[in-house]
Each structure stands twice: as structure tokens, then as C-alpha cells.
């Protein structure tokens, strides 16, 4: 730190500044990227699964309709954390089972007594980036079910007159779907989508359960009582301060996204007479 800054701030403040910019803290700040990636990629996947789920629920065939309804209801009837843990494990095991059918010898498979994976060749090691990708997909699946419900409702909310007008212009059903129905649907879906986004945002705090060194894990590490042999106790249990920072961080992000959605709603609702909230 330059001298002039130390003089300007005084000893206590400059010590504090150097403390919160030390290597461990920088690693903590860097770990916010996992949360941001999970939120954004999770939202994209959720939108994808949501559109898929809504399409299934609108389907002409009863089988597909019931698959869509089953997806929406089962996923939402189960805690998100259960699915969040289950999906990566299940995916990993399925891949390892596929690998074991190829890589393991018959003798290995016969000798195996209930351990997993059946042989060492079929072991798939998952690092942080793999877990992050799986976490994004499972967030997408869970909140896709919520999104599907929102989009399904919004598709029904589009005034029938608009669709009839489009049909009267001689639009093909597919043209009608893409040019009128889906475009008009967004404004009705937006309040619900903003709710789902808030839920998803809060679920990104669960990343540490998948061994990702995210903001929560770092807060726990940094706040734990710090004892060094040379200096003695650097600080006692400070975890509550770090969690308080995270608490405020999430409130801030919620506030910012609320503002963002308000702007989006004003822009999308331009020219609409009144939009039900």
C-alpha cells in the first residue's frame, strides 16, 4: 500500500484495508463468479426447461400433456435442495454406469461387492467446473418446473381476440404461435418470471453443498477463529460478520433485480393498455 494512503487513512483503517484485501479475501471476492455464473446459466436452463415444459403441457397428445404436468408437480412437490443434490449424483452415477459397461472387465464386475464405481476405470472425477455445470442444469430443471407453470399460465392469458385477429389475417398456426402468441405471452409471464428469478437467486447459495468453493464456503473459512503461532489469536469467531455481508449482498441483488424487472416491464408493456400484475 502506498505511504500517502496509509497517512491519509490512519493506522487502524489502513490495517483494515490491507486485511480485507489480503489473498484469502481476494479469493473470496473471486468466488462470487460461481454464484453469478450459476444464477445466469441456471436462469437460461430454467427458461429452456420452462418453455419445454409449457410446450409439453400445451401438447395435443394426452401422454405428453401428462408428462409435462408430472414434471411440474413432482419437481415442485420436492424441496429444491433434494433435487439439487440428487441430480448431479444421479447424472454422475449414470455416466459411470455407462462407462463401466465399456471399461470394466467381466471379472471386475463379478468381483465387485457393492462399491461404486464397479471398477477404477469407470471412475469419473468431477472437479469444480463439472459440478458447477451440473449445478446450473439442476437449478434449471428445478426452476424450469416453476417457469413452465408461469409460461403455461401466460399463454392462456393472451387475449383470444389477438389470436383470432392473427388467424383472420391468414396466418399459419406456426406463424401464429411464433409471431403472436409467444411474443405476447412474455408481458403476462414477466411478474411470474421475476418471482422465479428471485427464487433461483436465493438457491444459488446452495452451491457449497456440491463442493464448490463458493461465497458461503469462503465466508465460513475466513470467519473461523484465526490462530497463528507467531501472533497468537488474530481474530476470534468472526463468521457472523461474513454471513452478515452475504445476507446484505443477497438483499442488494434482490433489490437490483427488482429494479431491473420494473424497467423491463415498463419497456415491454409499452403500448399495452393495462397489464395484470
Amino acid at each position, binding site marked *: 500500500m502506498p505511504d500517502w494512503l496509509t497517512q491519509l487513512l490512519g493506522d487502524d483503517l489502513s490495517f483494515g484495508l490491507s486485511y480485507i484485501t489480503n489473498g484469502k479475501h481476494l479469493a473470496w471476492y473471486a468466488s462470487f463468479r460461481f454464484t453469478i455464473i450459476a444464477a445466469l446459466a441456471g436462469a437460461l436452463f430454467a427458461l429452456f426447461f420452462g418453455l419445454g415444459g409449457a410446450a409439453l403441457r400445451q401438447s395435443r397428445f394426452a401422454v405428453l400433456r401428462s408428462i409435462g404436468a408430472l414434471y411440474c408437480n413432482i419437481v415442485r*412437490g420436492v424441496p429444491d435442495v433434494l433435487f439439487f443434490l440428487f441430480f448431479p*449424483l444421479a447424472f454422475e452415477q449414470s455416466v459411470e454406469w455407462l462407462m463401466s459397461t465399456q471399461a470394466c472387465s467381466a471379472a471386475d464386475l463379478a468381483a465387485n461387492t457393492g462399491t461404486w464405481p464397479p471398477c477404477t476405470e469407470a471412475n469419473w472425477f468431477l472437479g469444480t467446473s463439472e459440478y458447477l455445470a451440473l449445478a446450473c442444469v439442476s437449478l434449471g430443471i428445478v426452476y424450469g418446473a416453476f417457469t413452465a407453470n408461469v409460461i403455461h399460465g401466460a399463454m392462456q392469458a393472451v387475449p383470444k381476440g389477438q389470436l383470432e385477429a392473427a388467424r383472420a389475417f391468414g396466418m399459419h398456426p406456426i406463424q401464429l404461435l411464433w409471431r403472436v402468441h409467444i411474443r405476447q405471452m412474455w408481458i403476462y409471464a414477466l411478474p411470474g418470471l421475476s418471482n422465479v428469478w428471485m427464487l433461483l437467486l436465493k438457491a444459488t447459495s446452495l452451491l457449497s453443498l456440491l463442493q464448490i468453493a463458493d461465497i458461503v464456503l469462503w465466508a465460513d473459512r475466513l470467519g473461523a477463529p484465526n490462530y497463528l503461532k507467531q501472533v497468537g489469536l488474530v481474530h476470534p469467531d468472526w463468521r457472523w460478520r461474513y454471513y452478515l455481508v*452475504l445476507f446484505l449482498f443477497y438483499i442488494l441483488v434482490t433489490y437490483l433485480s427488482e429494479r431491473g424487472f420494473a424497467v423491463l416491464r415498463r419497456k415491454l408493456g409499452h403500448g399495452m393498455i393495462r397489464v395484470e400484475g
Partner: protein
Amino acid sequence: MDWLVSLPIVSDIVTLARPSLFNIYFAAASIPIGFVFAIGLALARASNNPIISRLSGAYIYAFRGSPLFIQLFMFYSIMLSLNLSVWKPAGWDWLVLHPLFLGPLVLVLNTSAYGAEIFYGALRNVPHQEIEAARAFGMGRFQQFRAVVWPNMIRLAWPAYTNEVVFLFHATALIYFTLPVINEQKDLMNKAGELFERDYNAFLHFSVAALYYLAISLVIFFCFGLIYKRLMRHMSDKTPRSIRFAPKYLR
């Protein structure tokens, strides 16, 4: 009967029965208190006093805007750091730091914010003509509340509140990820994880745990649906709209 018990799915259902009681306990301990707090907060939010209204609004915003996972960690660490200075000298440390006390405490703080938002929304949608009618009858403020505002508020809020209760039940899964697990006091997620580590059968154990959550959620929907029917019994001309399992409201 022995062949039935030896089926892996049946033995899992038996093993997870006791852990499911912990989830039920967490929900059952926090719902009644959370309900009372939520009503209080909603009334405070609707208060004419700007300070009370703002404070209550800030509380609701903070607890709805942050994850329960962080709230659990935060309150646990706050309680821990107060341990040596406050709880130990007072002799309360066995209670305050116990997950069976701290878990419901944080859940109450969380659910009362979500509930308050629901009840506040309902409070604002109470038909004002009915309040005017009550005033025309010469009712006092408390009488108005007792006869008009309260029943309308509960009726309007009930479907959304049902949803919140189910969400709260799902949120109990998070408690033992943050608070210490004492001996065999394990909830569904802990026990399913333990069973998984024994034989690596993720599909079976987590599905059975999910089945428990699903079944108990359905029971909650059913019971709250019965209460809703009773609340709406005067609307006999139309068949009362039962609460669907796929509710529209989001948390």
C-alpha cells in the same frame, strides 16, 4: 411379511419414517408461531404510523430477499459468538444452541416475513365497501376488524398461505445442512445421505426421501384445503374452489 420388509424400497420407507418426524417437528413448531408473527407484521406494515410501517416493511424485505440458507448460518454464528458472553453465564447454552430450538427460531423469522407479505396483500384487498358498511353500523375499530377485516383477510390469504406452509416444510430440509447434527437426530436429507454413503444407491434413497416430502406436502394441501372449505362455507351457491396442487402463487 418378511419378503416385504426385505424389499429395499420398503426398508427405506421404514428407515426414513423416524427422520421424517424431525422435518415434521420443525414445520409444526414454526408454523403456529410464524402465523401469529406474520399477522402482527402485516398489521404493523399496514399501520398509519410511518415508523412502524417502515420497520416492518424493512424486516419483510430483508427476510424475503435473502436465502434461508444464509439466514440459518448467520443466526447460528451470531448465537455462537454470544455463547461465552451471554448464554453460558445465563445457563441457557444447552437450549439456545440446540438445533431443535434454533432451527424453528430461524424458520419462524423467515416464514413470518413471507406470511406477512401474503397477509398484507390480502389486507389491502379487503373490500372497502364492507368496511364502510361496518362503519355505517356504528362499529368501533376493533369491532370492524373482528367482524369484517379479519375474516376477509384470512379468506383472501389462505390459498397463498397454504403454499407458504408447504414451502416452509420444504425449507426444513436445509436446517441440518447448517446446524450441527446431534447423535441420531437426523432429518430426511441426513438419513438419505447416510444411506447413500453406505451403498451408493442414489436413485433409491433420494427417491424415497422425495416420496416422503411429496406425501407430507399433499397432506398439508389436503388439511389446509379442508380449512379453506370451512372458511368458504357461506359461498354455497358456487362450489368452493379447492386448492389445487399446482398453485399459482410463488413464494
